[in-house]
């Protein structure tokens, strides 16, 4: 082999080595990058899927057949008593509530004002069922901007339903429910749901005896939904539930939700 041939062969090998190294390096890194991106995407999609499932569950929980049946029965009772105005009024509230359930379940967030509207309708219908044995009080902080602050739709209604059906329902005498909205700062607020029912500990014990899992299921759905909302990085909500008998001589349950300021208001509803 002549000297020139050796030189060319050597240079050819060097070029080949360098080119091969570059191609191999970038191919390896691109493959790894694509694999990681795909994994991230899959995990994000799974989370979204789970979130949608939970939202659907939340909707199903609100539309529970007992509630629909009891509400229509109560309206029927007033019709039978010939209290046309009252029954018309409640029927209108009921149909409005159904419309709100479907409308808000499609949204990412709704204003506090709209959530309060939905809760009022829901509580009025429940009040009809309990007649004079149930009262509710909505306390709204004047500093709270109810039009510009948002929360995930139908996050409070299952809490109220639990308070009524598993707390107040089993209590003898006047049932009371307080829903208090407090402003923490410009973009954070706190919601407290306080009832004077039998308390969460007794309710759990009763459900265990009756082999009912609805309460546990709905609070599990709620907690998991809050966790997924936190994971989505659009919401940061602290959830706390305590039996009032543990800290005072009163009975009932107190649920506290703190909505912190990093909320997503892209898809809000005025």
């Amino acid at each position, binding site marked *: 082999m002549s000297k020139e041939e*050796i030189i060319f062969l050597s240079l050819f090998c*060097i070029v080949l080595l360098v080119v091969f190294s570059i191609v191999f390096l970038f191919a390896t890194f691109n493959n*790894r990058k694509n694999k*990681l991106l795909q994994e991230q995407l899959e995990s994000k999609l799974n989370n979204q899927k789970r979130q949608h499932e939970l939202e659907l569950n939340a909707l199903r929980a609100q539309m529970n057949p007992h509630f629909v049946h009891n509400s229509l029965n109560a309206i029927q009772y007033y019709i039978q008593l010939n209290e046309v105005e009252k029954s018309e009024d409640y029927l209108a509230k009921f149909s409005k509530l159904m419309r709100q359930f479907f409308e808000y379940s499609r949204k990412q967030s709704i204003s506090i004002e709209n959530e309060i509207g939905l809760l009022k309708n829901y509580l009025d219908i429940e009040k009809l069922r309990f007649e004079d044995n149930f009262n509710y009080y909505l306390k709204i902080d004047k500093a709270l901007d109810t039009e510009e602050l948002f929360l995930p739709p139908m996050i409070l209604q299952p809490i109220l339903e639990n308070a009524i059906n598993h707390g107040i329902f089993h209590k003898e005498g006047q049932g009371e429910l307080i829903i208090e909205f407090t402003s923490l700062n410009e973009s954070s607020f706190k919601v407290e749901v306080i009832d004077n029912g039998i308390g969460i500990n007794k309710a759990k014990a009763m459900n265990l005896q009756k082999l009912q899992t609805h309460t546990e299921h709905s609070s599990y759905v709620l907690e998991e939904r809050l966790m997924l909302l936190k994971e989505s990085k659009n919401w940061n909500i602290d959830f706390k539930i305590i039996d009032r008998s543990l800290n005072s001589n009163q009975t009932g349950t107190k649920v506290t939700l703190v909505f912190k300021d990093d909320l997503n208001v892209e898809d809000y509803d005025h």
Partner: protein
Amino acid sequence: MEEIKLISRILLWSFQIAAFIAAILTWPKYKNTTQNTFLYFLGFVIIIEFLGYFLPNQFGVKSAYIYNPFIVISGFYYLFWFYKILKIKKLAIILFTVFILVIINAIFLENATKIWKSPLIILALLILINSTVFYSKLLNKKEVVYYNNNPEFWIVTGLIIFHIGILPLFLFQKYLGIGAFYFRITIAILNLILYGCFITSFLCLRKK
């Protein structure tokens, strides 16, 4: 032949100066990172290149007297930089020891008037080892998704390509001849890739 030598030298200087300018312009973005010494190193490279051209041409000084110390200093600098980014003390001690032994060997056994062969070949191997460790670590991190915006990745890539090329070049040196045309051209191209990667490493900081 002389024209090509001059063109390749001018191209090399342009890339080195461009890398130095990029390092100055992006200094605030990396002054608190492990790359913060690169600005001084690139300044040092430009001074060496100037001396490597000026002293032999004006005073007949052997270029090996300038480039041999440069190989030693740059070798230590790269090994120290790898230690800073990899943080593996045992590996650093072994590699530093090997490099020091090779330099001692070169001082006593190699001709000081010619470019030292063994420190360059061993340095290339040590950089290949460090680069492999760096890549394997990066591939197992989540940051691999943004690897093309990682300045360390571009510096290591420049170093590995340069040394992959330089290794066979020095191994086949006796066939090519150190001052030969092909040898110079290959060295120049490898340097262009090296400093091109350095420039990219600074420019990707702007994108960040």
